[in-house]
């Protein structure tokens, strides 16, 4: 199997941010994204998705390291002060590097 290293950036945050995160990810060069509805808890309390104000999403972006850096720094600078957001990056291998 001929694989190629990429980064997987995962963003977990309020549903209200969804459209902004999609827009930003594209702007900084991501070719795609995947979003799941989640619930969770952290420093901003419990978000149970029982009500529209407490819905959360988990967004995955497979991309190059520079893109991951650019998106995550943008998110850190612009959203983390005022919104519940968690982020992490991990290494993944993909088969079709041109796709991501």
């Amino acid at each position, binding site marked *: 199997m001929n694989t190629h290293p990429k980064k997987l950036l995962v963003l977990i945050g309020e549903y209200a941010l969804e459209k902004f995160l999609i827009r930003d990810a594209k702007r900084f060069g991501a070719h795609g994204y995947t979003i799941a509805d989640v619930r969770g808890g952290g420093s901003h309390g419990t978000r149970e998705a029982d009500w*529209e*104000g407490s819905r959360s999403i988990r967004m995955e972006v497979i991309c190059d390291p520079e893109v991951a850096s650019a998106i995550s720094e943008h998110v850190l600078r612009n959203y983390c002060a005022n919104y519940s957001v968690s982020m992490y990056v991990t290494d993944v291998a993909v088969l079709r590097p041109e796709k991501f």
Partner: protein
Amino acid sequence: MRLDPVILFFLLGFAARFWDSDLKLPEALYETLSIYLLLAIGLKGGVELAKHPMGTVLPQAAAAMAMGACLPLLAYPALRHLGRLNGFDAASIAGHYGSVSVVTFAVGVSFLVKREVAFEEYMPLFVALMEVPGIVVGILLARMTGSAAAPAVLARPAIQWGALAHEIFLGKSVVLLGGGLAIGWFAGPSGLEPMSPLFFGLFKGVLALFLLEMGLVAAARIGDFRRAGPFLIGFGVITPVLFGAIGVLVGRATGLSVGGATLLGVLAASASYIAAPAAMRIAIPEANPTLSIVTALGVTFPFNLTLGIPLYHEIARRLIFP
């Protein structure tokens, strides 16, 4: 005085969650119920609107909108100076109280129907009209005073009015209420007749289910009461009483009946927890959403359901036929 049974559903939800029951309504059901209520209220109002001369309705509508825009201006200084909240939080909460709660309105209607008090059937129009102005004024307050007062991390650029207007006017609650009004108005009673088993026949039962859910949601926020503090709890009780009285007075001044004035009081007294939280989260991100939700949903909403609505009705009765 017997409680309206729909309120018992709220209490059931509240108690279940308070005692840590694992009862949960699926999120898709919550969304479905809220879409249904907004649409049904809009349709109802649209059907009735078609029956009334615009000459009567327009001045009342204008007064209701103006009132919605003014109420945050009363709330803001109290929150800022008495409550010592920062500008963002004060503006956001003020905006929530300028806007209205659709479900509180529906419970108010149910209260009047049970007591056989007549009211202007086109009142749902006012729900749609009063959703937005309070929110807009809240946002303006934040932009004007908040930016100086709070530790904004970002150098905030000029307000993007286009994006903001879009956010507010195309939010789901305005679209559903307004769309329902338009369809109801256009189709008229006979056009909607075949849909009335769904949109009108089931209304009260759906309202009961939604209140069950709101009870669960409200009780889940009990832990946040500490964060809100005694000032906001007091604010959540006193504001609706004052605003309710103002609403009744405006209703009287514009010639509404006792029932209509009661409902305008209910609208003024109620605080939004569907449209406003969504809009504020985007428009005033610096505001802590917990504070507005605990106050609007945890304090004012149950207060209005139980004590507020009868009180505003009493005020309307004494004021209008003294």
